[in-house]
């Protein structure tokens, strides 16, 4: 297992060597996010805005005037809910090619507690017109995604863990920013998941198989725009859905999936996610239990979804 921030910093370094218009701005969390080392290598285009996230967003939007593609990085809540208006007006409304990177999403903020725990960042960024919202699962997916994020001409919000994540994808994996990945086939229920919930969903699928329930696991790494084609192909087959996300069920993966299915192919959708509450201090095990983000929660939701079919 490698730390996500290490891979992120390396991916940026490589791209910054190839492209002198990529810039990286931190808001005093460069050491936490793996980007601090870039400022010595790329003086002038890798720098610190200080603890001033709104200013960082505006500076990034302004830098695009000279062809720069800035990445602005901080903990997830500080580059979403704190700067929602800058993200909307100075970045997306003005169609500025700025990439926003929010780390420590949801319960992965662990001991920083509720103030630092973004349970609503996907909802905020998804609601702002024009943003692509992407949550990498592991270092392999992250490594392959960064060049595609640069290549995509428009604002992107990347929501990523900064520490170690379990490996889900091998070296044969081929990532496409706008295509969801089917990680396991199954005929009875589709489990749509993102981020840290992907490994949990795969474990849950194993457990469900023992009960005779075939779960198809779909990694919706890009939550906006939803890969409607992959989602519908799966749900037309299974007829029932569970969503699993490290985020509030208001505005996140559950919302995105329901919005898509409601008008294309209505089916029961049972959510596993944070139930309209804030986070709290704790370690992952505790927080998964307290906020119902465990394997058993997905198993239970899958049973419920299967039972709702045709009713």
């Amino acid at each position, binding site marked *: 297992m490698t730390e996500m921030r290490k891979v992120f910093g390396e991916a940026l370094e490589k791209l910054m060597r190839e492209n002198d218009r990529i810039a990286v701005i931190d808001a005093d969390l460069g050491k936490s996010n793996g980007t601090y080392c870039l400022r010595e290598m790329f003086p002038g285009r890798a*720098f610190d805005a200080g603890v001033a996230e*709104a200013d960082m967003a*505006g500076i990034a*939007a302004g*830098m695009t005037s000279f062809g720069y593609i800035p990445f602005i990085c901080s903990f997830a809540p500080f580059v979403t809910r704190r700067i929602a208006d*800058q993200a909307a007006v100075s970045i997306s409304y003005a*169609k500025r090619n700025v990439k926003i990177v929010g780390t420590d999403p949801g319960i992965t903020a662990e001991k920083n507690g509720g103030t630092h725990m973004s349970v609503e960042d996907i909802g905020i960024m998804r609601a702002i017109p024009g943003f692509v919202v992407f949550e990498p699962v592991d270092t392999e997916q992250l490594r392959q995604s960064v060049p595609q994020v640069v290549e995509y001409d428009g604002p992107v919000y990347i929501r990523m863990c900064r520490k170690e994540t379990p490996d889900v994808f091998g070296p044969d994996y081929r990532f496409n920013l706008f295509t969801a990945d089917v990680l396991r086939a199954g005929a009875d229920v589709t489990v749509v998941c993102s981020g840290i919930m992907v490994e949990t969903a795969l474990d849950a699928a194993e457990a469900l198989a023992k009960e005779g329930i075939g779960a198809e696991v779909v990694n919706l790494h890009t939550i906006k725009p939803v890969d409607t084609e992959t989602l519908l192909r799966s749900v037309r087959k299974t007829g029932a859905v569970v969503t699993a996300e490290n985020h509030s069920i208001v505005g996140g993966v559950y919302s995105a999936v329901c919005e898509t299915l409601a008008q294309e192919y209505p089916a029961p959708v049972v959510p596993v996610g944070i139930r309209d509450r804030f986070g709290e201090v704790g370690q992952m095990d505790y927080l998964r239990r307290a906020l119902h983000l465990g394997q058993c929660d997905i198993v239970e939701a899958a049973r419920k979804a299967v039972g709702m079919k045709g009713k």
Partner: protein
Amino acid sequence: MDGIQELEQMCVQIRKDIVRAIGGAGTGHIGGSLSIVEALVCLYFREMNVDPQNPQMADRDRLVLSKGHAGPALYAVLAEKGYFDRDWLDTLNEPGTNLPSHCDMLRTPGVDMTAGSLGQGFACAVGMAKAAKACGSPARVFAVIGDGESQEGSVWEAAMFAGAHRLDNLIAFTDYNNAQISGTVTEILTLEPLEDKWRAFNFAARTVADGNDVAQVAQAVEWAKEQDRPAMLILKTVKGKGVSFAEKAGVGSHSMTLTQDDIDEAYEELEARG
């Protein structure tokens, strides 16, 4: 200074065009548009390296109208400069217009940054100045912020950054007409001591006693260019300047509905001066 008289005449024409645009739309931000005319004319016709035929010229000087509601003033100046036909002014705020009430860089040739949500444009201007330095561009960046806008904390975040990074390619202006929507700036939330504040943020700061005097503004810009750090020129202006009913309305001129009589009276008054 050369050409000041011509610029003064041009300001009269710009004011007529502002009245024409807002009069045509029926309602608009006339007070803060009229107060900033001299600064914009000075910049576009005396100072800035821009090419109306090539609005995206890489090393052009940039202007960010952070007080984006004064769009009509900028549009009148850009039309005069030749970015687009003056007839466009008659489409202000019409459905599908290229001239919306608040500046939109995607719609209007010559507009360098979208602005309207107060406190944001200035940070973008600072980002432009930082980027110009990073890539070795000779471009300079001019930013106009409102006095009411200066109550936004994000203005001061951006100021702190510009001062700390010694962005001497940035010249900012405060349109200090001392009127915001709900009253005078002094009574709502005073900015004073404003010059000291900017100095404390490592800007070179100077107050221009009459920010509606072309010669005074032009001289101040010459001074700002010589500074070894970002500069702030605090322009003491009059909201609604040059149009009696708007001047008399004071804080009420922030956004006004204009009758045909208002328009006729304003034209007459401006004609007499032109």
